[in-house]
Every structure is written in structure tokens, then in C-alpha cells.
């Protein structure tokens, strides 16, 4: 069994550090991203805009595992969905302001991730994918049957959007967007922080070569488990905001197709890029939104084909490809002697 490393061959991997290599470019990108996030609800129906940003954080959280630790979780719907339910329950029963409820949901997702992560990280690669999928399915069944709490297939309806009595936010999804955006941006920042921390460095080393990391004294399973829990927490933040934004939670949030959707977003955008998650979420949500009133029925036909094509032909994903092109052009321009130093 080869160690599972879902990255490019080494020669391609050369761009991983590059975004960091050009601080000015990074600031430009960040500024552009922020402007785009602020402007989004003017161009896109605000609840759809909210979906995009929430799912973008979901995809980014998944990428911490997939792109930076080399673990493909096919069961992240468990954390997204359970946080959505817990957030909804807190908001409904305690009437707390929604950010508090969202944090509660995220904490619950992390608690749930502890046992699942503990068991799952004992297997890597393909096994990990299958085991997480199976556990998520278990959580789904529990959600289905525990209808006293979850409302079963009716969903948890009428989740309030309480926000310190500020009516605009509570009733108008346009203003709600701006109230919820900071939570999601915080989540994205946290993901970036995690990836570019001493911890993130260890994760990358595990992705590249886990036995070697062990030989250096790193308890690989513990690192994987912590990454899993952190990823689940960020996923939970996104799921909680999603629940509040929609005002209800449905069982589909726990379903394995939700896990599949977010994997698609991450892969489509580009594994191991963070920015890719945003691009992937944007494209996927806009596609579903467009198809709803397009008269074309059979979204899975498109989704599935995109999956196959991306995996066969554009494994770098949209963002990864753009970055690769940019970097190889830049490399050609600059002399090779400088290397890719920072």
C-alpha cells in the first residue's frame, strides 16, 4: 500500500508555497476576495449569496483534511448537518442571538468529531474515505429516527433569526448576509491560520510522507485527529450559519450526497488551495440555482460529468490551474537562480 497523498507529482507540487512567496499578490487577492464577498448580495439573490459563502467555508474546512493532510472525508455532512440541527435547536429553544447558536453548533460538531475522528484516523487513504462515509450514514439514521428532536423528515422548522433585536437583520436576508458574513470570514481566516501554522506544517508532512513524520517523532494519528476535529468545527460554523439563513434544517444536510457535493466543490475549485473551495462553492451553487428554473432536469448528470472530467483532465481544479499557469509564467520570467524563496 502506498501512502495516500492526494497531491500532484512532486514536480507539479512546486507551486504549493508560491502564493506565500509573493506577499503583495496575496494582499491583492485578499482585498479582491473581501470586496467580492461584500458585493456578492447585490449581484446574487442574498440567500443564495449566503449559501455560497457558507458552502465555501464548508469546502475550505474539508480542504484542510483533503488538501493539507491527505485525508478524504466522505462523511463531512455529519458535522455540517449536526451543527445545523444543534444551532437550530439552540436558536429555537433558547432564543439566543444567532452567533451564539452557531458557535454552539460548531462546538457540538467538534464533540461529535472526536469519537468519529478517533476511530477513522486509524485508517488512511481509501479506508478513511469509506469509514467516514459509513459513520456519517450512521449519524443520518440517528437524525432520521430521533424525530422528537430533529423533526424527522419534516425537518426542524421555524428556526428564528434572533440578532439583538435588530429587525433588519432578523427579517431581511440582505442585511442578515452582512451580519453572518463575519462568522464565515472568521472561519476562513481560521482555516488559513491552521494551514499556515506549525501544526499545518506537520499536517503537510503527514500528507507527503506519514511514516517519515512518525520517524521524526510526530504522533501522526493524534495530528490527524486534531485536524479532523478542527475541520469539523469550521464545518460546523458553516452549517450553523446555513441553518439560520434558511430558517430550517432538513435531513438532507446529513445525507451522504451533501458530503459528495462538498467534495466536488473542493475538487472542482482545486485541492490544497483554500481559494479553490470558494470558487468551487460559487460555481456549484450558481449551477444548481440556474438549473432550478432552466427547464433542464437532471443536475446529477452535469455534476457527475464535471466530477469525472475534473478528475481525469483538470486535477488541479479551477483555482489550482489558474495558479499553476500564473506561476509557470512567472517562473519563466524570473531567473531560476532565485528559486521559490520567500
Amino acid at each position, binding site marked *: 500500500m502506498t501512502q495516500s497523498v*492526494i*497531491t500532484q507529482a512532486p514536480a507539479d507540487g512546486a507551486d504549493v508555497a508560491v502564493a506565500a512567496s509573493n506577499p503583495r499578490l496575496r494582499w491583492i487577492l485578499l482585498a479582491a476576495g473581501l470586496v467580492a464577498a461584500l458585493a456578492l448580495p447585490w449581484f446574487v439573490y442574498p440567500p443564495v449569496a449566503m449559501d455560497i459563502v457558507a458552502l465555501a467555508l464548508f469546502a475550505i474546512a474539508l480542504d484542510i483534511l483533503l488538501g493539507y493532510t491527505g485525508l478524504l472525508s466522505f462523511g463531512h455532512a455529519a458535522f455540517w448537518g449536526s451543527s445545523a440541527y444543534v444551532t437550530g435547536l439552540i436558536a429555537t429553544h433558547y432564543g439566543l442571538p444567532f452567533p451564539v447558536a452557531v458557535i454552539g453548533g460548531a462546538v457540538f460538531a467538534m464533540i461529535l468529531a472526536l469519537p468519529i475522528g478517533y476511530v477513522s484516523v486509524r*485508517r488512511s487513504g481509501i479506508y478513511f474515505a*469509506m469509514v467516514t462515509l459509513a*459513520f456519517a450514514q450512521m449519524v443520518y439514521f440517528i437524525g432520521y429516527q430521533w424525530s422528537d428532536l430533529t423533526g424527522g423528515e419534516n425537518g426542524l422548522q421555524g428556526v428564528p433569526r434572533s440578532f439583538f433585536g435588530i429587525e433588519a437583520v432578523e427579517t431581511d436576508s440582505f442585511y442578515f448576509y452582512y451580519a453572518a458574513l463575519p462568522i464565515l470570514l472568521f472561519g476562513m481566516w481560521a482555516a488559513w491560520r491552521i494551514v499556515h501554522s506549525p501544526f499545518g506544517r506537520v499536517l503537510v508532512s503527514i500528507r507527503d510522507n506519514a511514516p517519515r513524520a512518525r520517524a521524526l517523532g510526530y504522533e501522526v494519528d493524534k495530528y490527524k485527529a486534531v485536524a479532523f476535529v478542527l475541520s469539523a468545527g469550521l464545518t460546523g460554523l458553516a452549517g450553523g450559519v446555513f441553518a439560520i439563513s434558511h430558517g430550517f434544517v432538513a435531513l438532507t444536510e446529513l445525507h451522504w450526497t451533501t458530503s459528495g457535493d462538498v467534495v466536488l466543490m473542493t475538487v472542482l475549485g482545486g485541492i490544497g488551495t483554500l481559494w479553490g473551495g470558494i470558487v468551487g462553492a460559487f460555481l456549484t451553487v450558481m449551477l444548481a440555482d440556474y438549473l432550478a428554473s432552466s427547464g433542464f432536469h437532471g443536475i446529477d448528470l452535469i*455534476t457527475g460529468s464535471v466530477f469525472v472530467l475534473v478528475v481525469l483532465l483538470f486535477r488541479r481544479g479551477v483555482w489550482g490551474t489558474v495558479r499553476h499557469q500564473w506561476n509557470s509564467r512567472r517562473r519563466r520570467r524570473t531567473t531560476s537562480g532565485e528559486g521559490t524563496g520567500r
Partner: protein
Amino acid sequence: MSAVVQYAVQGLAAGSFYALAALGLAVIFGVLGVVNFAHGAFYMLGAVATAVLLDTLDLTLWWSLLVVPVLMFGFGVVVELLLVQWLLRLDPLYNLLLTFGLTLVLVELVKQRYGVSGLPYRLPGGLQGRVDLSGVVLPRYQLFVLLFSVAVCVLVWLVMTRTRIGMIVRAATEKPELARALGINVGRWVTPVFGFGVALAGLAGVLAAPFRAITAEMGNNFAIILFAVVVIGGLGSIVGAVVAGFLVGLVEAFGQAYAPTFAQILIFVLMALVILIRPAGLFGRQEATT
């Protein structure tokens, strides 16, 4: 007492589907290193093909048991040549993603072509009715499914142990380092083995046709349970896949009989326990430490 025997036989019959399909999954994994997410979709296609062949060409179940696996073998070969083989040199997760996408496409295509309600299928006369085994009454077809799939598993086992091709496949599946050491070139067996695994999934689908709803989505839940089966059995093991298939069938049946609310969760609990106690699965080869 007779109830227990009855549940056991029913469980084993339900396990037959898992065993056959998991066997295909295990062989594909062994030789190609690919976890075929589309295995559930291939199972579904087997059932759909059976129904369509009856409808259009009036092929009965007996013929379908022969024809459909051959068709599925051909389809598997096409899928391998067109899609899977391009990713074999890369991380196996890419093929998992590829076959996931393929699943979405196949399910949607069947939905578009044959509708969402499902397809009709009639059991051939000879297999209708029931048999009475000293107080334990069973549908004749259930017994047939059980005996037939055990026979197939035995046959596959004989092929694996008695023929040269079988030895090569088995060596590649269970002792890759040995296969390499012996200088066996597994390469040219890759495509037919994929086809063979797909054919087994299709065969499980044929057997399911008379007894289960033939819908585009019938393979989805099946595939997830199948994953639990191979994790329990140990992915690298052919025997493990079969034994775990029947075992999960039994767990399901007894769970349904005595703790229906937890029947489905039980399988995943079993999986978690196996991972905790024997990470490589009940029959799995202990991997070199990761």
C-alpha cells in the same frame, strides 16, 4: 427455535447480495488498488438490465443470470479502458472520486431513461412458492438466491486456487509483495479483472431483480453498506469479503428481528468495533505500519 433458524437463513440470503458484490469489490481493489464507488450503480444496472431484457427480448431470469454478467463484464471493460486506467498510477483516491462521479451519471441516466418509479419484474414460475424445511417455511426464491450465490463463491474460489489466472489474481490481491517478487506481470490482467468485479456486482443485481425494487437509486444505500462489509472483512482479502458479506446479512436480520430500530446502526457499530480491535479487518493483511 424455528424462528431463529428462519432469521438465520433469511439473513444469509440477504447477505448473499453483499457477499457477491463485495467479492467483486475486493478483487478489483486487490488487483487495481481501486475502491470502486460505482459498485452500487453496477449492481443497479444489473437489475435494470435484467428487467429490460425480460421486457424487450423476453429473456427469463435463467438467461439473465448468464447474459447480464457477460454484458456487465463488457461494460466494466469499457469503463476501465475509457476512464479508470488513466488514473491507476495516481493516488487511489482519484479513482474513488472518478467512480463517485460515474455513479451520479449512471443513476441519473437510468432515471431519465426508465423513470423514477422503477421497473416491473416477474419471478419465473419455477422459483415461485415456498419450501417447508421441517417447520421452517421459506420462499423458494430466497433459498435459491442463497444456494446460487454460495455456488458462485465456491466456483470463484476454485478458479482462484486451481487456475493460473486465479493464482495470479490471488497473489496480486493478497500478497502483492510476493507477486512482485515472482515477477508476475499483473498488468495485462487489470482490465479483465475490473470487468470480472463489475460482472459480480451485476450478478448480484440480477438476483435482486425479482425480489427487490428495481429503481435507479437501489444501489446507493447498498454501496454504503458494501463499504462497511469490506472494511469489516478486510479489503485485501477475498475470503474476508465473502464471510463479512454473509455476516452483515446475519447481523441485519437478527437486528431487524430483535432490535429493529437499531438494525441499520448495528452494522456501523460492528464496523467501528472491527476497526478498533483489528484495524485491517477480520481477514485483512496487517499493513506495514503507516
